[in-house]
């Protein structure tokens, strides 16, 4: 018995020693809507964040300190997101927070993080998150406006100017609609039909019949699955032959799978993730993209998408800023603003005191569905 006690105390001492030896972990909070309606964003984001943290820790952490990721599920609810943000800051004492997944939640959470002076790197797309700029709020998802600009540029080059828009009546669609309307003038576009559909609608032939009867030269549809897939099928059913543009909201293989043959020829702006393999070797993002897509596939069985990419970017930007010397919340914020030409998944980020979104429209490429796969549009 005495021997046992000796052994025990020895182990305890050993354990305690090893504990004090190990560097203290860097705590990063994460708010993602892993469940709930925006789970198509939150789930790949959570998976990606976990994967990135595991990789960083396997490689020895950041400056010898391991990363500790604390993930909470907001279920897409802004009130919950705010409570969880408070918990991350006050109970978990995190250095910085990544997420939330949606614009609505981010707008609610950012008031908390700004007050508590904790850097927030949102994974949502809404341009109002970083416009006007607040010192503590950054984001990684590409602005909708950049995607709209890409489409309008392409229409201009085809000498088409009369456009029908069909947008989904949720946050994503209405933000796209605002951008489409506000940028139309700049590119000399006339919106001859401006119609919407509900996120759960199952038939859009009525709206499309109206478009068919108008003088539109092209259709732009703004939504996330499954609506646009139904619209693609309806367009084919009605025999409409106008060029069809969609948003980056459907830039995943899932869209082609759902719409089948009806997706053929549709053009959309997309982050470079889905065409990683086709990018020229000189592309600054190629290395990161290919590594991410394959790493995700190895771990989770499906290819990484651009939603998960937002979390990859958020964590890697944090890592870079910490490596540059941002070890407290205040210095971290300063270092984030100094990051320039960082090639991530969503694009090449250059933050500054005036720009906390960091991307240009080069972040988007135009892709077209050809033979049930994506092809780059020149």
């Amino acid at each position: 018995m005495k021997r046992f006690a000796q052994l025990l105390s020895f182990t305890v001492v050993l354990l305690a020693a090893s504990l004090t030896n190990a560097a203290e972990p860097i705590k990063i909070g994460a708010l993602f809507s892993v469940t709930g309606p925006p789970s198509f964003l939150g789930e790949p984001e959570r998976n990606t964040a976990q994967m990135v943290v595991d990789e960083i820790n396997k490689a020895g952490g950041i400056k010898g300190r391991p990363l500790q990721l604390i993930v909470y599920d907001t279920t897409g609810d802004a009130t919950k997101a705010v409570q969880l943000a408070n918990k991350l800051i006050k109970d978990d004492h995190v250095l910085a927070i990544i997420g939330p997944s949606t614009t609505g939640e981010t707008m609610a959470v950012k008031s908390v993080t700004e007050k508590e002076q904790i850097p927030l790197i949102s994974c949502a797309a809404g341009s109002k998150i970083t416009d006007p700029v607040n010192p503590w709020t950054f984001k990684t998802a590409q602005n909708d406006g950049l995607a709209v600009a890409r489409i309008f540029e392409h229409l201009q080059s085809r000498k088409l100017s009369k456009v029908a828009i069909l947008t989904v009546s949720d946050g994503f669609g209405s933000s796209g609609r605002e951008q489409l309307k506000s940028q139309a003038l700049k590119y000399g576009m006339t919106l001859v039909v401006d119609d919407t559909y509900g996120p759960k609608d199952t038939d859009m032939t009525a709206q499309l019949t109206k478009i068919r009867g108008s003088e539109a030269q092209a259709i732009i549809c703004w939504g996330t699955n499954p609506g646009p897939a139904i619209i693609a099928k309806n367009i084919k059913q009605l025999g409409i032959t106008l060029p069809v543009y969609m948003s980056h909201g459907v830039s995943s293989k899932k869209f082609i799978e759902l719409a089948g043959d009806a997706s053929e020829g549709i053009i959309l702006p997309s982050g470079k993730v889905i065409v990683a393999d086709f990018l020229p070797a000189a592309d600054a993002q190629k290395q990161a993209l290919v590594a991410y897509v394959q790493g995700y596939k190895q771990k989770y069985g499906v290819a990484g998408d651009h939603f998960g990419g937002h979390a990859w970017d958020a964590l890697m930007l944090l890592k870079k800023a910490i490596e540059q010397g941002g070890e407290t919340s205040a210095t971290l914020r300063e270092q984030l603003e100094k990051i320039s030409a960082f090639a991530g998944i969503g694009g090449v980020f250059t933050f500054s005191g005036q720009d906390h979104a960091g991307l240009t429209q080069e972040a988007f490429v135009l892709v077209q569905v050809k033979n049930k796969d994506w092809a780059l549009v020149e």
Partner: protein
Amino acid sequence: MDFSQQLTQYLLSGLATGAIYALIGIGFAIIYNSTGIINFAQGELVMIGGMLGVYLLERWQVPLFLAVLLAIVGTACVGVLFERLAIRPLRQPTPLSLVIITIGGSILLRGIAMLLWGKDTHALPSFSGDAPLAVAGATLLPQHLWIFALTILLITATKLFFQYTITGKALRACAVNRRAAGLVGIDVRRMVLFSFFISAAIGALAGIIIAPLTMTSYDVGIMLGLKGFCAAIIGGMSSGIGTVLGGILLGILESLGAGLISSGYKDAIAFIILLLILFLRPQGLFSRGESERV
């Protein structure tokens, strides 16, 4: 493209959507008529039918028509289980507690479907191709013809079943007076179980034949269920032609509303009609006073 052609397209699209609503509505009506329960989990049964079909087809590579059949049987079993586990154990069923139970059941079924099959949207291949058919300047898909045909077949079958078979008559007897039906030797509880079986099977069929058009995912049941409920209410909860007309009326109004006014009002139209009917003609548009409903 002239206006009359547009109008034909609106009407035809409305007819197609309406037939879907009607199919779902009939499921509501059958259970209501034999038990007095409004089964708010009906939409979830539609979803399970579609998802089960997709699952069998994609995972097990079952041939399409076998998958349809198996999905219908599977969903009917879910309907039976639901009745046995959630409805029958109730000691004193009041309308309110039944409504709450079926709503709770629908949330449970949705959650199980989400855990089993994930949150992705799935599409079934069309039964007979995607080549559009031209009808008087408007277009339809072959899948729409399947929907029309099955709706007509189903209405006729339920009509014949309720009119001419012993079980059908027994179900009607339960609808008229449960106590009296029990006194003449009808096993009322078995009839209730049976009505859940039929309407789950019909719901599953609806879920599968619309999946090539509307896609399916774990959460399609809510909206489809509500629209089907609207159709059944407009039709005065009849399990025959009334609900079909109700569904078609709803579909056409939605389509015209979206095409001529604004698509923003599409769902509002459905629910305004629902409220108006409930206020003004609770017995439905097509029935005269308290008549037999089966």
